[in-house]
């Protein structure tokens, strides 16, 4: 039976309600690409999500509308999700030791003090 909808666009599509239309074979799904957005030149690209696409070029077109439609963006990367090598969550214990190694943290450097002092000097020289 034909689908009768309140939405004229659905009616125009002439969809058969009994058909198997819309059922997808698992292979019909496009692969996913991960999207990385750069807000300003020189800053890091940040992962913002993923898109389905048949090619990296179309993934780029989709990523632009999906993720940079609102707000500032100067550059996008897309990369096939399958190309990303990730750690296993069950191996998360490999990160545990780092927490106790405070000597690896740069906390004891008085960097900000030096930067402030430098800026002061610059201001006075200007």
């Amino acid at each position, binding site marked *: 039976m034909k689908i009768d909808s309140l939405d004229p*666009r*659905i009616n125009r599509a002439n969809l058969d309600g009994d058909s198997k239309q819309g059922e997808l074979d698992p292979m019909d799904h*496009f692969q996913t690409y991960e999207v990385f957005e750069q807000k300003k030149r020189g800053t890091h690209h940040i992962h913002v999500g993923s898109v389905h696409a048949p090619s990296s*070029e179309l993934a*780029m*077109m*989709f990523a*632009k*509308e999906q993720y940079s439609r609102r707000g500032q963006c100067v550059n996008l990367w897309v990369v096939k999700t399958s190309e990303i090598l990730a750690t296993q969550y069950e191996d998360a214990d490999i990160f545990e030791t780092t927490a106790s190694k405070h000597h690896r943290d740069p906390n004891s450097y008085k960097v900000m003090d030096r930067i402030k002092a430098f800026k002061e000097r610059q201001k006075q020289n200007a």
Partner: protein
Amino acid sequence: MEFNDKHVMGLKDLLYRMADDLLILGHRNSEWTGLGPILEEDIAFSSMAQDKIGQSLALYEILQELGESDPDTVAFTRNAEQFHSCHLVEMPIGEYDFSLVRHFFFDHQSALRMEMLVDTVVEPLQMVARKFKGEIKYHTMHADTWLKQLAATEESRLRIQTAINESFSMALGMFESSDYEKELIEANIFGGEDELKAKWYETVSEKLMAFGYTIPSLDSEASNGGRKGQHTEYLQPLLDEMTEVFSIDPAADW
């Protein structure tokens, strides 16, 4: 150069062509919203449809400065024969192959027309041409990317090729001469439909051939008449639907 009546009439006709094309195609393409082939494409195509409505508004605002009615009145209260849009944009959305080919043909035309208008003596139009340059560039990139992608398999290549062949005469209708070509050119308002058509054909034929399609000859018959208010049977029903809500209460506050 001082504009005479013919210059102003020519400019208004040019603005109506551009704005009406964008409004009608924007509305047509929005009919895919919710029905697009995949979610990502649905969002991209709908977003570009909205861009087109926005661009048409900017052009109707220039027309208002030239003494025409306000954008809502102009967009929602005219009948089909008062529209200057070409036949290509009023065709129903058909299958996605046709909608993509129309998007490709139309948006390259739009990009090149805006490029020619970057140096127009009409300052507000110059500003519009500059403002939407990036937006339209994305639209053409999107169309190019799809047509390149769909050349990859025999079935999809054939479907696109068929849509190219079937919509070509309507695409040529985008460049129907205006009664004021001479005036527009001499006053440096616009370089003219013939120059635009030549640039467009060079661009789209180069791209289509690179992707692996063929393109009909420029001598093919053009589906003209739209620019003079002679439309196909498809425009009036579109207008009826587009103005349905507005007609209930034209004075409503939004």
